[in-house]
């Protein structure tokens, strides 16, 4: 009896032993309901315990399992074997240094995320006794889409500007800044300006749109950045004409 199998060609790299990464092929059984992550787990459990990779929720909400599968950045828990040919090539996320196998160094991404001040910068300090902010559904709807980011870094892997220019703040960080700038509880647009409206900020983006194509949560970071460009251009000219208008 021959059961159907799938060949996974995975990029390996052991910093202690290897000069550079190389592909290693594994044969795993095919299951109709398996995602690529299931196949990788099978390899680790049954074939090669040295294979290293990140994963957690297995349901596309934690953002841990991003990798490049047959050339496209995807979540491996969201990518079904049945949608692919019998030979699948798996690499770590592009544009990040490879630590080991499918694990990349996320430091640059994390520092950029933090740099846009991703928290509500309120008009005045509120204590718990002041009660909660009241926000209408309409006010929430303005920015809700941009809250959906799970920090999976697929957008950074897809973005050619990030590939070509490392200082670029990047899609997720800029979409997150946009989320706060649109939140009516927040008045921090000028506080975020130094990073967002800088040359390596929104102005490095040339609207390729690959980020929005790969985003598993439909955040549309490309759209967020273009909206930020329009807002920033407005700010720039209004500040020039009316320098007194800013706090």
């Amino acid at each position, binding site marked *: 009896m021959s059961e159907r199998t799938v060949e996974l060609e995975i990029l390996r790299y052991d*910093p202690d032993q290897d000069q550079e990464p190389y592909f290693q092929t594994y044969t795993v059984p095919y299951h109709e309901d398996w995602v690529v992550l299931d196949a990788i787990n099978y390899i680790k459990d049954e074939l090669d315990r040295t294979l290293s990779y990140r994963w957690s929720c297995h349901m596309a909400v934690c953002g841990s399992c991003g990798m490049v599968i047959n050339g496209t950045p995807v979540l491996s828990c969201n990518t079904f074997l049945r949608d692919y040919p019998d030979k699948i090539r798996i690499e770590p996320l592009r544009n990040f*240094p490879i*630590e080991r196998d499918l694990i990349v160094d996320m430091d640059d991404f994390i520092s950029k995320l933090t740099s846009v001040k991703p928290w509500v910068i309120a008009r005045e300090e509120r204590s718990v006794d002041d009660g909660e902010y009241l926000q209408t559904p309409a006010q929430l709807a303005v920015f809700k889409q941009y809250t959906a980011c799970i920090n999976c870094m697929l957008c950074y892997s897809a973005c050619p500007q990030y590939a070509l220019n490392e200082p670029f703040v990047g899609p997720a960080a800029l979409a997150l800044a946009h989320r706060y700038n649109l939140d009516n509880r927040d008045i921090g647009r000028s506080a975020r300006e130094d990073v967002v409206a800088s040359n390596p900020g929104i102005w490095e983006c040339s609207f390729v749109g690959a980020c929005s194509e790969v985003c598993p949560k439909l955040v549309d970071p490309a759209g967020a950045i273009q909206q930020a460009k329009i807002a920033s251009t407005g700010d720039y000219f209004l500040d020039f004409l009316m320098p007194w208008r800013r706090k």
Partner: protein
Amino acid sequence: MSRRPYIRPVSTTGWWLRDGLYFRYMMRELSSLFIGAFTIFLILGLYRLSQGRAEFEVFTARLLGPAGTAFALLTLIFAIYHTYTWFQVTPKAMPIVLAGKRIPGFVIVAAHWLLFAAVSATVWLLAVIF
């Protein structure tokens, strides 16, 4: 285990050849090469017009010749691609919310194409009449 992160090299010139989306992006960007060049050519034509009949007729001979026609046709193809891609991204750059609901992208795109048709027809008619 010690850390020795490996950075994979990226092709700075050929990266756009390896993916359909990247390739179409580059075609969109290169539309500006023809658009810019032809616009400068038209500006040159207006300059020749201001110089006099003889100079302008030399210009129109070049414009209507085989090379000029090929240049114009190529520019037209790129110009239409520019229009198409520009309209496509407009809903993303300027989302419009009406009565609490976001207007669907295709509505905004369709409205742009209708306006495009109206503008084109108007300009054409004005040019032909006067």
